[in-house]
């Protein structure tokens, strides 16, 4: 592990590493408040330019701060399921990032964290812990990537995020795993009173099997807006399970998934639970199929447990509307260009939640995915 000193402008990365990380949101250290990069079985770099942010390898954080022991497996049981148990069992020396945004910090530049799997047929088990302390505000960019030569392997990750009272976080996550990889991701977030979250997850690149399970617990007067942009070409199977629990009065959530299948399968199970009066939640699950192959399954579920919990959902799955295609082609676009524009629009890539620098890269990913270039 290289612990880059304060102000070091260039991380210890190869050109290839920089290139593949750049595709999932990496920027030079000077443009980020803090950076953490994990490669294969080691934390390769941690660096902070901002006194309001501390980043450490998880193992070091556990030794440095007693409270981190309470955070680890604080939101999920180590025996929750087979994969999580596997991570727990394998991590004699825990592998992952610890990001701590200090109380009251107003972090102006984004914090970036990345995971690389560089060994073909590698097996990677990681555990990341994020603590956004009371009243802190931060923007986070996370990515996962493999070099072009890595097609197969397995990645299992656990993420635990604690948002303390009145904290605020906007985040973007981009995954670019290998086409033959199996990936299991488990994310758990607890939001304390008044915390606010805005998150975007982008899953565009092919992967053999991708199972993600996210659980969000929201206390009083919290707010969460999340969107997932999900693409599955031939050979990709994704299962996305989300659970949002509106536990405290006044908690509000909006969870939208936009899914595109170009031959792959996507299953989106979204479960929204209103446990207190005055809560308000919305689930949106929209699917667009580009071919007759593959399938999209959208299963929104609402569960109101308290009087005054207002829950709603919208779901749709369909093919590209030929009227829209013809409309664009009548302006001179060929069919591929017209389809790309419709898909980009469907995925709402102009949404302000996506950093402009990343937007162009995602557009390129869509074009590559459509042409089978990824």
């Amino acid at each position: 592990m290289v612990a880059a000193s304060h102000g070091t402008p260039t991380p210890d990365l190869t050109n290839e590493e920089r290139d593949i990380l750049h595709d999932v949101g990496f920027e030079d250290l000077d443009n980020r408040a803090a950076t953490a990069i994990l490669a294969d079985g080691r934390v390769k770099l941690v660096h902070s330019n901002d006194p309001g942010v501390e980043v450490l390898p998880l193992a070091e954080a556990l030794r440095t701060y007693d409270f981190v022991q309470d955070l680890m497996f604080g939101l999920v049981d180590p025996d929750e399921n087979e994969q999580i148990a596997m991570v727990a069992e394998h991590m004699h020396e825990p592998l992952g990032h610890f990001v701590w945004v200090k109380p009251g910090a107003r972090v102006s530049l984004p914090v970036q964290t990345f995971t690389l799997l560089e060994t073909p047929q590698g097996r990677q088990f990681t555990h990341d812990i994020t603590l956004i302390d009371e009243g802190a505000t931060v923007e986070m960019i996370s990515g996962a990537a493999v070099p072009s030569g890595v097609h197969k392997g397995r990645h299992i990750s656990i993420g635990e995020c604690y948002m303390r009272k009145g904290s605020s976080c906007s985040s973007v996550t981009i995954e670019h795993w290998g086409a033959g990889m199996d990936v299991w991701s488990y994310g758990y977030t607890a939001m304390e009173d008044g915390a606010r979250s805005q998150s975007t997850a982008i899953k565009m690149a092919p992967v053999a099997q991708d199972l993600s399970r996210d659980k969000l617990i929201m206390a009083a007067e919290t707010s969460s807006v999340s969107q997932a942009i999900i693409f599955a070409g031939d050979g990709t199977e994704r299962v996305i399970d989300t659970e949002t629990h509106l536990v405290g009065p006044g908690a509000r959530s909006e969870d939208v998934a936009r899914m595109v299948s170009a031959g792959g399968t996507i299953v989106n199970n979204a479960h929204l639970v209103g446990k207190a009066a005055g809560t308000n939640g919305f689930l949106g699950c929209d699917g667009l199929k580009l071919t007759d192959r593959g399938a999209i399954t959208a299963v929104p579920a609402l569960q109101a447990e308290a009087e005054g919990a207002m829950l709603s959902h919208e779901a749709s799955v369909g093919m590209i509307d030929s009227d829209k295609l013809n409309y664009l082609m009548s302006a001179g676009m060929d069919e591929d260009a017209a389809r790309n524009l419709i898909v980009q629009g469907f995925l709402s890539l102009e949404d302000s939640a996506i950093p402009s620098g990343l937007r162009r890269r995602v557009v390129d990913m869509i074009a590559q995915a459509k042409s089978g270039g990824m």
Partner: protein
Amino acid sequence: MLEVRDLTVAIEDKTILDRINLTLPEGELHVLLGPNGSGKSSLLATIMGLPPFTVTSGDIRFDGQPIQDLDLHERAQLGIGVAYQRPPSLDGVSLRSFAEALGAQDRLEAAAAALDLADFLNRDMNVGFSGGEIKRWEVLKLVLQDPRLLLFDEPESGVDLEHVIAVGDAIARVVRAPDQQGRICSGLVITHTGLVLNHVKADQAHIMKEGRIIHSGDPHALFSHIQTAGYTVPAA
């Protein structure tokens, strides 16, 4: 510029257009008058190559080239464009991203301002637009596409009088201006109310009825005739 000769068009087995003949010379703007269901929109869609119309006989030539076997986007790339009567809405596709996809972003802002759409550049196409805004956007869309043959399908429908004037003036301005390469343009405008007639400054009008062009002549004389005698052939 546009030559339609003995064109017969069907949807499945049903004839929609019957032996249509129409000549639109370079630099001219013509209007198609006719009652609802007379085949005006079907003719424009057939020229453009939109489904579900099948040419069963006759041909369509653009600059002397037969185009009825060309795909929709190929006709557009040759220089034909259409302003829709009821365009679809495209969620998530802004006017700006559309212009970028056409490579026309450099002239977007000025063209949008000229059509009073300067505040619409980040709006999604046709999403939440009023009737007048849709019509002005369709004109702007053609400016961005930069065709030489501009087809307008009922540009005054669903629009209040103030917008009819604005849209009519915009059509005249766009058709009468040369394209980006300095070439002369032509226009064909469908109307069944005649409201845009005073504004588009048409050179010639054609009356369509029951899938046929039954008469051609001076636009204002024909419209006056229609107001008194309906969509009939004027006496010689």
